[in-house]
């Protein structure tokens, strides 16, 4: 083997590493390793100046390998790959060694031990780099079409966004109609936008686009192919009872470049007896909104019929028939209990520990609707016939612009009572009057225990993830502890999943209001467009590779592979095969395993199972791993 020319750069990280690791000693020890031509330390290897120095060294010293010992590869892999590329070195000839998270930060009490460990880690990195070969990214052609799963506000807006930039869309909706939750909403905060109107507008726009195909009563049941070129299988109809008679299920195959999942949420359903749920007069917030809309009190009522009502018709008329009633009885007092099904204690089985984020705003907004509908009417001695509203909350989270809703509700007469996490309100029925009684210790009145007589108790219920077992299986979507779908990075990659080309948006990834759902839907659109408009995508070449000389097809690798279609069985035709390994394949006509580099994720699960040792993981070959172990195990003094 010809001697490599490797450059090693060890980072102080401004003290993060050098406070606990003697970086000069590391440099002095590893500079004599075989193949090392340059060994330097730097205050910050990621700084522009040091990057420039590396670039010069690579070119002037004619380096063919680069080792950077600094922080986690999560932070700077792409930084230093870029340095290599700019210097004309193949990016895969560079190795990142983590001497911060996995060394200095972990051993702040043992400077000598940390230094020794750093030496071993850097030696392993050098050993790996000594055996690297130039690799090229796998280029895949992308299909300029996308599949959107879920026809709620996020899915429909995503479909329109894709359509606008010339990407054809297939939209799959499980229900008989698109529209989702929002189509059932009346007036929505913060600007009294009407849910039915919003969705009617979106549906109208969708109908105008020739490049959007909507499948209702449909589900995504299969996904094959690779990133940028998926074959999706959609099952249409036939699923549910009550569907059109004798509607047989039909299966449709479409080719798409990306998949956007916007399957939304479910409303939390309280347990029987939870805050009195199940008693007459105890309702959830969605149930209460329905009651408001159906009694003509919600601002949304009537707008669906197409007439604009200016602002206040149906609210102020105060005529007979518009007073709020429940089961024939007038409602004069309402108690709202917040955080039902959200921010639960960890002691509750399957606790929803998260805040559902939209509910404080939704409940406060609802109380404003009630206040407007039941505005004090003059007459009869001037005593108003308003509805008294009590809000029992843990923490009021009317964040951002919605703070104004809270102020307005307070000004309109809503009373807010704060209860402690450990002292939830109790709901009971007064046997004599038949009224509901809500007892709570109000922290804002020196924790005085008070009992509120209420005609209605509204449980402000949060969001829970839908059960999407089939979809999770089909798409191999990662699900978080909270059972919502997981993005790669909550801040920097908020709509991408670990499955390339599959994006998530809306409330399926966590509680969101409709505005936030739309924002994330449009983020998913731009991410999709990023790969689909370019026409091709570049994938990491760090994937498994089969040596057809060794392979005799036993199928063990395919059995172990978690990715559909990554390993296929193929007959070696004349002059074909994975020729890169040997150029010539022994035993033409024999069957071997062939790996689709676009589907393989390089997990390495197949490599150790191969009885012929025919599989190597590019970038992490057996030879490289063995060399790394030797580098780690070598005595430090030597």
């Amino acid at each position, binding site marked *: 083997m010809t001697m490599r020319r490797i450059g090693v750069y060890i980072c102080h990280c401004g003290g993060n590493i050098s406070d606990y690791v003697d970086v000069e000693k590391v440099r002095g020890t590893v500079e004599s390793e075989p193949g090392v031509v340059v060994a330097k330390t730097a205050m910050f290897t990621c700084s522009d100046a040091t990057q420039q120095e590396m670039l010069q060294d690579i070119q002037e010293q004619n380096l063919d390998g680069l080792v950077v010992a600094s922080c986690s590869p999560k932070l700077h892999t792409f930084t230093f790959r870029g340095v290599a590329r700019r210097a004309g070195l193949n990016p895969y000839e560079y190795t990142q060694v983590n001497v911060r998270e996995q060394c200095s930060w972990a051993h702040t009490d043992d400077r000598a031990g940390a230094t020794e460990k750093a030496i071993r880690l850097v030696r392993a990195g050098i050993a790996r780099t000594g055996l690297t070969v130039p690799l090229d990214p796998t280029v895949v052609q992308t299909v300029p079409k996308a599949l959107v799963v879920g026809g709620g506000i996020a899915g429909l807006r995503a479909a329109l966004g894709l359509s606008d930039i010339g990407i054809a869309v297939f939209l799959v909706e499980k229900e008989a109609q698109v529209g989702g939750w929002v189509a059932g909403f009346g007036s929505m905060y913060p600007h009294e936008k009407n849910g039915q109107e919003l969705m009617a507008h979106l549906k109208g726009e969708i109908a105008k686009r020739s490049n959007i195909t909507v499948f209702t009563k449909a589900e995504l049941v299969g996904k094959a192919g690779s990133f940028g070129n998926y074959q999706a299988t959609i099952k249409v109809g036939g699923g549910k009872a009550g569907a059109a008679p004798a509607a047989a299920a039909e299966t449709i195959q479409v080719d798409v470049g990306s998949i956007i999942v916007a399957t939304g949420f479910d409303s939390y359903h309280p347990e029987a007896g939870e805050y009195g749920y199940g008693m007459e007069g105890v309702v959830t917030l969605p149930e209460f909104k329905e009651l408001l809309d159906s009694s003509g009190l919600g601002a949304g009522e009537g707008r669906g019929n197409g007439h604009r009502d200016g602002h206040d018709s149906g609210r102020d008329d105060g005529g007979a028939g518009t007073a709020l009633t429940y089961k024939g009885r007038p409602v*004069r007092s309402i108690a709202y209990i917040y955080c039902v099904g959200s921010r639960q204690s960890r002691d509750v089985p399957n606790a929803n520990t998260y805040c559902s984020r939209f509910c404080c705003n939704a409940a406060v907004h609802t109380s404003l609707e009630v206040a407007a509908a039941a505005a004090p009417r003059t007459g009869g001695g001037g005593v108003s016939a308003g509805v008294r509203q009590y809000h029992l909350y843990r923490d009021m989270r009317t964040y951002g612009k919605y703070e104004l809703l809270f102020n307005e509700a307070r000004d309109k007469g809503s009373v807010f009572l704060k209860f402690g996490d450990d002292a939830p309100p109790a709901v009971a029925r007064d046997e004599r009057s038949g009224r509901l*009684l809500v007892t709570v210790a109000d922290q804002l009145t020196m924790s005085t*225990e*008070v009992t509120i007589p209420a005609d209605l108790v509204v449980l402000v219920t949060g969001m829970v993830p839908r059960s999407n077992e089939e979809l999770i299986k089909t798409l191999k979507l990662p699900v978080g502890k909270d059972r919502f779908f997981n993005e790669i990075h909550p801040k920097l990659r908020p709509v991408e999943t670990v499955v390339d080309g599959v994006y998530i948006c809306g409330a399926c990834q966590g509680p969101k209001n409709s505005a936030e759902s739309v924002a994330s839907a449009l983020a998913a659109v731009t991410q999709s467009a990023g790969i689909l408009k370019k026409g091709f995508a570049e994938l990491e070449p760090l994937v498994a590779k089969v040596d057809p000389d060794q392979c005799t097809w036993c199928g063990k690798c395919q059995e172990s592979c978690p990715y559909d279609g990554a390993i296929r069985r193929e007959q070696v035709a004349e002059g074909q095969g994975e020729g890169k390994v040997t150029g010539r394949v022994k035993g033409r006509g024999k069957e071997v395993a062939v790996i689709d580099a676009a589907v393989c994720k390089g997990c390495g699960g197949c490599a150790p199972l191969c009885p012929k040792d025919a599989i190597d993981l590019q970038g992490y070959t057996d030879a490289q791993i063995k060399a790394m172990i030797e580098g780690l195990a070598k005595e430090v003094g030597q």
Partner: protein
Amino acid sequence: MAVAVLNPDLVDMVRRGSHDFNASACMNCGACSAVCPMGIQLLPRKLFRYVLLGMEDQVKENTETIYSCLLCKMCEVNCPGGVHIAENVRSLRHFINRQVFRL
């Protein structure tokens, strides 16, 4: 303290004719009590809270206190919420006159 059953109509009972009662902006900070020259402990933040919630008995029990107020407005000029404290106390006196003294 025994559990107080709220009277949801209390605020409306205090608000009568030209007498308004508005303490929704009160956030219980206590600036009013701190500057009160009479050193009245209850006034006005606890009292207003009783009214807002509908704790009728607690309001009626504090007739003396409600009439101890000088209406000097020291509290009002110092109130960060801009609550019209003196106006509220006047409305409460009318309420007490009617409901307690039967005037």
